């Protein structure tokens, strides 16, 4: 048997629905149709009345999730694409993220954001929104890079008493497979050493972990041992694991698929600079997408975001510094 990243997300939701009567799913086309990507396939039938089609109203979808959470439910919201969470942004950052702080009433909602680029998706179906949400206090932001994490972290997201922004990567939906779903998992909030190495650290998350691993594989044939840190959760950020890796290697490249201004990679570099400056043998480096909207044509798209090749070049450069 083999399970894809997308199927793991479906299975996690099925399990959450089965185990907790407070869970329901609300989003566009998630009902009988099973969702734009089929992440809720068959769930409406299996759990009648608990998987609800929503009007195209991201603001009201999130607002209703907050109201339901106040009343003790645990809604899972599917945004059709991460990009379309912007009309619901206000409710996420001003309503969901402030509720507990203002009232001591928790807001256990999970907002699934199908994120990131696939070839040909263009400016409005490819975005990575994690940095925008991570900026706001009161939110937890998860960015699973593996099938196992997609499953276990989604279950954890639903169980957590705070609003979780769950950034699932569309490129990984079908590309990643595993044999079986995990029975044990690392907790969210902890980074993972995806590949150990002593010469240089690459910090990455979500789909970029796989680009980094491909680059590391290539570099190992040249005798360079790269350590790859998979952040798993970008908020909170597991600074300890990052610093420990930098302590081992002395050189670090931070890779993200999002736009270059600010964001997760800048935050990681800032923490390394402030907390691990003395551990560095070279200036910490960042690699992001280009500072333009995400292009449509595959030729442009594959040059816009970081890839194994551009990571390889960045690491080679870093080793010369």
């Amino acid at each position, binding site marked *: 048997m083999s399970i894809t990243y997308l199927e793991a997300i479906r299975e996690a939701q099925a399990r959450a629905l089965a185990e907790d009567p407070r869970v*329901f799913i609300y989003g566009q086309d998630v009902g009988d149709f099973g969702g734009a990507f089929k992440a809720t396939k068959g769930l409406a039938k299996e759990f009648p*009345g*608990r998987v609800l089609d*929503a*009007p195209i*109203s991201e*603001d*009201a*979808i*999130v*607002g*209703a*999730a*907050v*109201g*339901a*959470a*106040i*009343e*003790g*439910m645990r*809604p899972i919201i599917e945004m059709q694409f991460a990009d379309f969470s912007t*009309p619901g942004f*206000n*409710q996420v950052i*001003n*309503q969901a*993220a*402030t*509720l*507990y*702080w*203002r*009232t001591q*009433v*928790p*807001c256990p909602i999970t907002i699934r954001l199908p994120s990131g680029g696939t070839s040909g998706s263009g400016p409005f179906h490819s975005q990575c929104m994690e940095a925008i949400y991570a900026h706001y*206090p*009161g939110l*937890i932001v998860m960015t699973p890079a593996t099938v196992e994490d997609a499953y276990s972290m989604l279950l954890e997201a639903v169980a*957590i*008493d*705070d609003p979780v922004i769950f950034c699932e990567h569309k490129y990984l939906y079908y590309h990643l497979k595993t044999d079986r779903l995990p029975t044990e998992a690392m907790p*969210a*909030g902890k980074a993972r050493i995806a590949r150990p190495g002593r010469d240089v650290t690459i910090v990455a998350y979500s789909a970029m972990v796989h680009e980094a691993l491909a680059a590391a594989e290539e570099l190992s044939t040249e005798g360079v041992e790269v350590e790859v840190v998979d952040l798993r959760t970008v*908020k*909170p*950020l597991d600074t300890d694991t990052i610093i420990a890796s930098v302590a081992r290697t002395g050189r670090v490249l931070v890779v993200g698929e999002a736009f270059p201004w600010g964001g997760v990679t800048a935050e990681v570099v800032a923490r390394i600079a402030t907390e691990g400056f003395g551990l560095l043998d070279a200036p910490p480096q960042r690699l992001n997408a280009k500072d333009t909207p995400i292009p449509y044509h595959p030729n442009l798209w594959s040059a816009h975001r970081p890839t194994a090749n551009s990571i390889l070049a960045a690491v080679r450069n870093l080793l010369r510094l």
Partner: protein
Amino acid sequence: MLSSVSEVSAAEIVPQVSKDEYLRAFRWLLLARVLDEKLAALYRAGKIPGGGVYLGKGQEALSVSVGISLRTGDVYAPLIRDGAGRLAFGETVVEALRNCLGSVLGPMRGRDGNVHRGRPRDGYLPMISHLGAMISVVNGVLMAKRFKGQKGVVGATCLGEGGTSTGAFHEGLNQAGVERLPLVMVVANNQYAYSTPTSRQFACKSLADRAQGYGFTPHSVDGTNLAECLKVLGHAVALARTGNGPQLVVASLLRLCGHGEHDDASYIDPRLKESEIGRDCLELSEEHLLVNSWASKQELSQWRTAAQRAVEEAVALVQKEPSPDPYTENWCALQTGRFAEGGSK
């Protein structure tokens, strides 16, 4: 539109407003006005930490009618000019003052202030500033109650006419219509959104006309008339409670104060002030009480004195209470402490 008649015949479901109910509502109305007057005085004396004071003068008849029509188990998301409705729904003067004067014992413990207050667990939702944003939250509470099999519950929320121009208003009403929720949407058309007149806010004849597009039942009411407000709100709430779907109540009135106490409201058209909607609902209801011999002049003055005393006592109490302390404050925005970030532990 000054129609004082609900567009759905109310007579069969809601009896005429009784003397008892009118008196009960009047006392809350009066208390809210007296509390507002005190808040204005405290503002002028520089006693309001953080600054803003937003009053409901001229809107109390409408507001109290919402609060008084709800019962325990219902959901209420009031807005900035709903001091009267809040009291009628069960908030105390002390609770209101704590939030305005920054007492750490207040419902928001200094983390939020003035009109941003509530007790979500009791169905009393604390507004965020973003206009229109509370509608879908009330919808969500109502959806959850439906999941849990609770019946006969109503959710009510209030907005000014300016707030009806937001996308959130449209999404919220459409959502309530699609889900056929027991929502009562109360719009106070007080003719100005801050300084903006209705001619720059919307282009339909009456905001009640929008009801049809959302699958709501429309009601229009003269917001200066307490008896009419009680009747129409009572009716709308009864319809929602008995499975007749969402209701839109649009009241016509005039804001009889500045947008906030910092605002002299010099932009308000004097002709509006002299027109019927410019009348003060408190004065009108006092006249109503006298004309019907439901109260004497002496009683009216005793009630005002009693309200003033209650407010003064509450102020004296709350002013002695501690303010929040930044050194002992728990600077963590998450319920799950282990996920706290940078310096918040």
